[in-house]
């Protein structure tokens, strides 16, 4: 019997109909948002939803350094200091300590010096920090004690860990007060040979005794069995001195005022010895029960779920110290509603759910559906979200405004540049010819056009290495790079004029003076061919590289793009084997020293493997840098910075490209958002209106059912003739 003549033939017309009816009935019976990715029991709760793209590599404060990592660690750990959330320029304020420390200076004999003592007299700076009393760690099994007060979980083995897969699987937790020992322990961890702190090299030159501690730990670690524990309390560190239970001093060599900024970074957050001991027990690492996976801190949040391939959840730390929302900010903050929560106890949300979104399309659509509270803007979505005005100002599109979405824009504390290798015989050297060649290239590359075409206007043309917001950056006429721009007066402009890029003719003139008239060697007639090493080169980069080639062609220079992989690029830069390259720098802290050091002679990469990839060595610049870096932000410091900028603009070791702008969108129910380019601990200030969010989500996400019905009918229209055909063919 044919399949299509089966006994069900009589009922065939009815069964699909019944199924369809049942389906539609069941669909009609459902309400709410079908596309809601969150569990129903989270509805209406005070939870912030956001996303992350790259999984954090490290959550141990001694290692975490990248933005992906600090997004989490900055909410969990509390270094002694933090940045004021609202005030600009950025100001350090106490976090867990009573006050921002004022360094005491000592000479080589240990005698006190005046606060304004010259750097060359200062042998040591001493930072004394005193904790606020009563700060407690988040609940954690490492602190759990039995009735007799002994630790519950300090003698675990693999058998005892059977059935335990996460921190939440431990039956008991405890807490204790934060002490100076916890901070000192973390400073010692910087030297731990197995932890590979990225700042150990730098800090070992700075903190008294840290280098020696590193050597001792390295030696002792060799004798340890695999997975063995180094008890850092057994090691002395003269540079971290305990005064009493709540007070400690950090001794650093010489004078380095920027050290206070480091005290606002997770590298200097407290790690208790018992936590280090707890995680070092046998069997823990195999279950990812390590500090690098389950951080322990005193901050406003604790990591309650860690599946970095899918979701990470920060929950309110019930033991948080009672910090309150700031009551003062900069001009305009009150009008912007940023002071409405003055005095309220932080954090203002109960939980933050970070979902991993590797692709921008789902991320963007979920934001528009109200399932993420805030979002960045990918290039693909830029036109849908933002409209750029004639003078470059960004406004939201009508579609975004209709959804009540708000735009938050700010210039990031970063700088991007195309560097010349000053060791190169063609583009390098501090000779007049080298300078003029580099200046000509700087003029020829039209950064304004680049920002407009490739960044959707999300950048500010750079005049030097210092981005806006950093001491020494100046707007207007005073801040232009006179080697690349002219100031054109225009009373209609808010700044009384505007910077206008010098002409290609001027660039050609400089090139000719450099010995390359019309892009050819004045003596040999050989064409000028310059090589750019880049890790770009894929399909998406072609347009940029073609554009760049055309910029060089404007001054008759042939550009050769040498695309390479990241490893080879790093290696070539390290050996000084590149001619030109692209790089960028994100500020560690808001001080000009953190940008100028990228061009300091001591940092020359080919010489000392430092951060100066251009191998730029100008004795005058270096001398000014040494003076400037130890100064407070005074008019005298500003004068030195102006001179340093003038030297750089003249020598042109970099083509100063742009300072990137960050555009963030947020829904109407999310408040207290302000761009914070350093610090990163902004989560505790955010506020959610869950009722409004629920209402909007329901409005925006009503399921549309009729196309489903049409689709089913269409499928039926295809299948029924097929079945008829089959029946006709059957014998």
């Amino acid at each position: 019997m044919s399949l299509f003549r089966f006994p069900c033939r009589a009922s065939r017309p009815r069964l699909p109909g019944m199924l369809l009816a049942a389906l539609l009935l069941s669909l009609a019976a459902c309400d709410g948002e079908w596309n809601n990715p969150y569990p129903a029991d989270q509805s209406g709760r005070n939870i912030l939803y956001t996303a992350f793209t790259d999984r954090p590599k490290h959550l141990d404060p001694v290692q975490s350094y990248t933005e992906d990592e600090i997004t989490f660690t900055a909410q969990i750990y509390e270094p002694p200091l933090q940045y004021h959330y609202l005030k600009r320029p950025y100001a350090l304020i106490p976090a867990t300590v009573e006050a921002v420390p004022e360094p005491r200076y000592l000479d080589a004999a240990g005698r006190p010096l005046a606060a304004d003592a010259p750097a060359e007299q200062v042998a040591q700076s001493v930072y004394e920090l005193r904790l606020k009393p009563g700060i407690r760690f988040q609940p954690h099994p490492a602190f759990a004690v039995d009735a007799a007060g002994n630790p519950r979980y300090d003698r675990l083995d693999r058998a005892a860990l059977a059935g335990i897969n996460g921190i939440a699987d431990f039956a008991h937790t405890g807490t204790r007060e934060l002490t100076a020992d916890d901070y000192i322990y973390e400073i010692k961890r910087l030297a731990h040979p197995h932890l590979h702190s990225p700042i150990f090299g730098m800090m070992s030159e700075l903190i008294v005794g840290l280098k020696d501690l590193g050597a001792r730990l390295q030696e002792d670690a060799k004798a340890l069995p695999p997975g063995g524990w180094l008890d850092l309390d057994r090691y002395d560190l003269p540079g971290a001195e305990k005064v009493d239970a709540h007070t400690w001093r950090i001794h650093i060599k010489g004078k380095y005022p920027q050290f206070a900024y480091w005290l606002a970074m997770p590298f200097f957050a407290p790690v208790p010895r018992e936590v280090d001991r707890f995680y070092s027990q046998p069997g823990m690492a195999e279950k990812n029960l390590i500090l690098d996976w389950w951080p322990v801190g005193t901050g406003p949040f604790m990591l309650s779920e860690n599946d970095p391939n899918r979701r990470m959840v920060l929950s309110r730390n019930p033991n948080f110290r009672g910090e309150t929302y700031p009551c003062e900010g900069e001009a305009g903050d009150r009008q912007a509603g940023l002071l409405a929560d003055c005095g309220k106890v932080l954090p203002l949300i109960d939980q933050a759910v970070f979902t991993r979104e590797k692709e921008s399309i789902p991320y963007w659509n979920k934001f528009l559906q109200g399932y993420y509270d805030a979002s960045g803007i990918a290039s693909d979505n830029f036109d849908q979200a933002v409209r750029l005005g004639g003078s470059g100002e960004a406004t939201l599109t009508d579609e975004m405004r209709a959804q009540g979405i708000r735009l938050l824009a700010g210039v990031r504390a970063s700088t991007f540049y195309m560097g010349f290798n000053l060791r190169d015989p063609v583009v390098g050297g501090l000779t007049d010819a080298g300078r003029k060649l580099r200046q000509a290239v700087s003029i020829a590359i039209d950064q304004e056009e680049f920002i407009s075409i490739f960044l959707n206007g999300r950048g500010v043309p750079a005049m030097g290495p210092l981005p806006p917001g950093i001491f020494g950056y100046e707007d207007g006429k005073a801040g232009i790079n006179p080697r690349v721009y002219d100031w054109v007066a225009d009373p209609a402009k808010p700044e009384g004029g505007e910077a206008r890029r010098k002409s290609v003719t001027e660039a050609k003139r400089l090139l000719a003076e450099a010995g390359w008239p019309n892009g050819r060697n004045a003596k040999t007639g050989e064409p000028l061919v310059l090589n750019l090493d880049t890790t770009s080169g894929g399909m998406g980069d072609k347009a940029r590289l073609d554009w760049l080639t055309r910029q060089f062609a404007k001054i008759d220079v042939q550009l050769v793009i040498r695309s390479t992989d990241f490893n080879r690029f790093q290696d070539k830069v390290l050996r000084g084997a590149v001619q030109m390259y692209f790089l960028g720098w994100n500020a560690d802290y808001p001080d000009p020293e953190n940008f100028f050091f990228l061009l300091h002679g001591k940092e020359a990469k080919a010489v000392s493997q430092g951060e100066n990839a251009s191998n730029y060595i100008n004795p005058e610049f270096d001398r000014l840098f040494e003076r400037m870096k130890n100064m407070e932000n005074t008019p005298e410091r500003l004068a030195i910075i102006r001179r340093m900028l003038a030297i750089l603009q003249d020598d042109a070791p970099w083509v100063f490209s742009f300072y990137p702008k960050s555009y963030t969108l947020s829904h109407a129910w999310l408040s207290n958002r302000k761009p914070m380019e350093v610090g990163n601990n902004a989560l505790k200030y955010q506020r959610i209106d869950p009722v409004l969010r629920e209402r909007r989500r329901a409005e925006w996400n009503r399921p549309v059912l009729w196309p489903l019905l049409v689709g089913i009918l269409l499928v039926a229209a295809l299948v029924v003739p097929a079945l008829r055909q089959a029946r006709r063919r059957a014998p």
Partner: protein
Amino acid sequence: MFAYLVRRLAYAVPILLGVNLLTFALFFVVNTPDDMARMQLGVKRVTAEAIAKWKAERGYDKPLFFNGAADGTAKLTDTIFYAKSARMFVGDFGAAEDGRDIAREIATRIGPSTALAVPTFIVGLLVTVSAALLLAFVRGTRLDFWGVVACVAAMSVSGLFYIIFGQWLFSKALRLVPISGYADGLSAFKFLVLPVAIGVVAGLGSSIRWYRTLFIEEIGKDYVRTARAKGLGEGTVLFRHVLKNAMIPILTGVVVVIPQLFLGSLLMESFFGIPGLGSYTIDAINAQDFSVVRAMVFIGSVLYIAGLILTDLSYTLVDPRVRFD
């Protein structure tokens, strides 16, 4: 049969050694231990001492294949190749370069990958075989013609288009399912409906055409004519005879991929936020994490060999003439 299995398993050992050797050689042609250290330690403020320490701690300061400075067997065993390869053969994958346990990571990710891949595979197979049989059944008709046209059109469209269009239509425009995400247990259903459906639809065009060709070839054979002459219905002819006799080429393409379903799908998992194994190897290559790369290549090889053995065994089930003695 047993002897055959033992022989095939014995063959697997040199294959795995060879794959491991090739992976090792290719990886270290492209990356040096210094590159790996720089990638793990980051690009900011990394010193030469930090790189040296990182390499020493993980054994990347040793020679790659041959240690001339060592004595006896240590010339071969005190090398990166031996240290990083030997333990895999006893199932110990060790830790990734960032310190996380590889076996645990795989165990965590394999569930979501399977939850997506297995239904896609089963539903896809059922739909394609049924549709191909239907087209073979109505061969030469307008339905067959337009069916083949539709298949060619469907296979000409990029898989990415199906994903983006599917997400736009069902999640954004109709708002019927979440656009991406994942949940454990039964809650995973609403997250998997769309990727499974898209996975099935995206594979229909080429598979239906391929199976249709196989079925039509079988339909032309004498035994089919005989079966019809006996008075069997067309459905019985197709399902009992044609399908069974076309199984060898079908199984060749199908069974070998079954073990690899556990390895997940890069594109689908990436777009739908499914925390599976699909991107684990790619992420590891990008992060220059040799420990993960070698582990995943090793597992992939083992699964491929298992798939080939299963395919051979499956032949005996559908074709009595196939014997391994």
